[in-house]
């Protein structure tokens, strides 16, 4: 469904992403992990069209989308969320999600109905009429997911939707992502929280200094010497404990 071929992205002399290749098949739930500055979000920005890579290609369902603007890529069925949440702050939760739903749908009435459905799926039903700006972080993260979901993507890119959540909220979010995946959505998740990722993803790609250093099932990743040395180390033993 999505193929990256040798994608590189530089900022001046700094190489944020170096020759990353990976494959996502329809129905996958792929996790991307790596320490701060490993290039995870940069990779998302390249995939979703926010950055143009210096080298390599991004192919979505057989179509080369490298260099297309984000809105065009979104219309092709790939929608992302933002690590630093970007709600339409002065609008209500319902209006936020409606704007997403208005991409595939032509009328505001249909979009409102669809937004209400998505809001319920994402557990935001009680807050439909709250101003987005007034929501606590956990709900703003959910709003990111809801808004993206309303565009009817076939591939959803979730950028650290679990960061900053307390344990209860975290369980709720893991559950939501699982349900979306079970409903047939293909998902790529960037995450910092190892424990959650280990339980969630079918396959994990590890980035370190912009390079892909490992790929495999959570078990393979956990036992991969390079990964443990390069990145997991202390963090991971904590997560295991």
């Amino acid at each position, binding site marked *: 469904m999505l193929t990256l071929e040798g994608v590189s992205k530089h900022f001046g002399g700094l190489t944020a992403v170096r020759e990353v290749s990976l494959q996502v098949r329809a129905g996958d739930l792929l996790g991307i992990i790596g320490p701060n500055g490993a290039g995870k979000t940069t990779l998302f920005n390249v995939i*979703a*069209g926010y950055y143009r890579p210096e080298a390599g290609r991004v192919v979505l369902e057989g179509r080369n989308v490298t260099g297309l603007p984000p*809105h065009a890529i*979104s219309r092709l069925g790939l929608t992302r969320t933002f690590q630093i949440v*970007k709600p339409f702050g002065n609008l209500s939760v319902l209006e936020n999600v*409606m*704007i997403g739903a208005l991409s595939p749908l032509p009328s505001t009435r249909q979009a409102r109905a669809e937004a209400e459905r998505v809001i319920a799926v994402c557990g935001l039903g009680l807050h439909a009429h709250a101003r987005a700006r007034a929501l606590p972080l956990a709900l703003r993260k959910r709003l990111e997911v809801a808004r*993206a979901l309303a*565009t009817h993507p076939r591939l959803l890119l979730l950028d650290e939707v679990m960061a900053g959540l307390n344990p209860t909220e975290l369980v709720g979010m893991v559950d939501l992502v699982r349900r979306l995946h079970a409903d047939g959505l293909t998902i790529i998740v960037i995450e910092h929280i190892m424990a959650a990722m280990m339980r969630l993803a079918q396959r994990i790609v590890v980035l370190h200094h912009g390079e892909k250093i490992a790929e495999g099932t959570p078990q393979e990743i956990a036992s991969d010497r390079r990964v443990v040395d390069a990145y997991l180390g202390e963090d991971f033993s904590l997560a295991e404990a």
Partner: protein
Amino acid sequence: MRWLAPGRAAAALLFAGAAVVPLLSRDSFFLDSVILILLWGSLSAAWNVAGGYAGQVSLGHAAFFGIGAYAAALASARYEQSPWLGLAVGVLLSIVAGALIGYLSNRLKGPYFALSTIAFAEVLKIVASRWRGFTAGSEGIPVPYRPGFWTLGLDHVAWLYLALTLALVCYGLQVYLEKSRVGYRLAGVREDEDAAEALGIATRRLKVAAVMLSAALTAVGGSLWAQYVGFVDPAHVFSIDLSIRFALNSIIGGMGTALGPFLGSVLITMLETYLRATFSGMKAGFSGIYLIIYGTVLILVVRFAPEGVTGLADRVWRRRGAARAEAA
């Protein structure tokens, strides 16, 4: 979007009130005030399409106003054609100008966008002042008065209804921008461009389109104003004072609301007229004092009602609603 039912009722009252004015009074000073309130309100609503709804805050809308004013004035004074023809030309030129500035300033945000629009209006002002062979330069153009609708030589009552028609069109358009698909998407662009892009919205194209529409309406207002006042000169029609006036009406009334620009126009036009009438008769040294009071009032409004009058009313309304709910 938040300011719904009471706002619509207030607007209906405002426009109905304007419509019955000629039945009550034929005093030309009074009629003139109402006409100007409607014209400035419409022009501010036109500004609001870009500044309030699309978040493209311009301080150079006098550029489009001036283009409209000059097109109409030149059509009737120089070419002895109908000013309506000039209006059409002015609208087309303004759309082109709006596309140009919208496209060129696309990546600029906030104050940088505003500065680029000021520069644009200043350039047009200089062109209009120096191109003497065509525009008569800074002397300006007196617009000949030829009675009739086609020549826009109208009496005060007819002007009032013409201005009211423009106001209703502008108001209706804003309501459409609150209710429609494109309006919601525009709100997304205003609130966060990156997020809007992620949802499949072509943000650059939408922003330019909003500026073009806003420019076209502003040119209509400029053409009508030129015919109504009967004189056009570059120092006024391209002035930053005018640009600020369009923005200020909306900011005082409530940006991004359909009623806001008209409410702002009522308040500011009345305040200005009152202050000028009250204080201009004083000794020479005090003749400018109305500007100081005017400025002070504006500062107070921006300090205590930053969301404008509609925002303030909305807050009061909600608080009362909450209090009533609590009492029940």
